[in-house]
């Protein structure tokens, strides 16, 4: 029944590997996001999709590629992982013009690159 669910929750992988994090929301929202939280706990937006269309693409290495097959899903694929990619990645969603556009977060995916 989780509103925003992301998998896997924990991921340990070696440098150079390619990995994906999946996200699904069952809230019927039209906008989805990926945020990155680094070791200093700073939260920074990476991407935002509205109705499957990319609307925010912050300065993120092109090794990161989001994919939105439909409004309810936004997956994050990362190529050639680097040590600095270690972080917690949060998927989130919101509905335009409802509840102050409140963003609802998933539980986070802890990525560790070794």
């Amino acid at each position, binding site marked *: 029944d989780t509103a925003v669910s992301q998998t896997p929750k924990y991921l340990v992988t070696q440098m150079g590997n390619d990995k994906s994090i999946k996200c699904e929301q069952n809230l019927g929202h039209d906008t989805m996001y990926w945020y990155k939280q680094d070791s200093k706990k700073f939260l920074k937006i990476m991407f935002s999709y*509205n109705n499957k269309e990319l*609307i925010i693409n912050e300065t993120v290495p092109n090794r990161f590629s989001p994919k939105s097959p439909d409004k309810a899903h936004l997956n994050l694929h990362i190529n050639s992982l680097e040590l600095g990619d270690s972080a*917690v990645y949060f998927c989130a969603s919101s509905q335009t013009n409802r509840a102050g*556009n*409140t963003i609802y977060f998933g*539980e*986070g995916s802890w990525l560790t690159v070794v």
Partner: protein
Amino acid sequence: AQTVTQSQPEMSVQEAETVTLSCTYDTSESDYYLFWYKQPPSRQMILVIRQEAYKQQNATENRFSVNFQKAAKSFSLKISDSQLGDAAMYFCAYRSALGNDMRFGAGTRLTVKP
């Protein structure tokens, strides 16, 4: 770009007492939303309270209330009757009514002493 500043990296409070967390923001817009999120050690981002900028009345949710000073661009969070479960990182966030993302402050770590 809008910025959100939380000037208190750490705060502590005695159980059952009251604590206030500070937040200021910078914007040239008149219509926006402000939020406080709580992040316990599990890293889940939990919405605590939301304030619409067009509302003069301060938002309240049980033991949590805000002091919204629009002219001063200040948005502090007051936690009354603090409980051990309130211990967490607290993030202040700003969202433009027209924008598609949420900007976060650096967070305040709250410790509750028994």
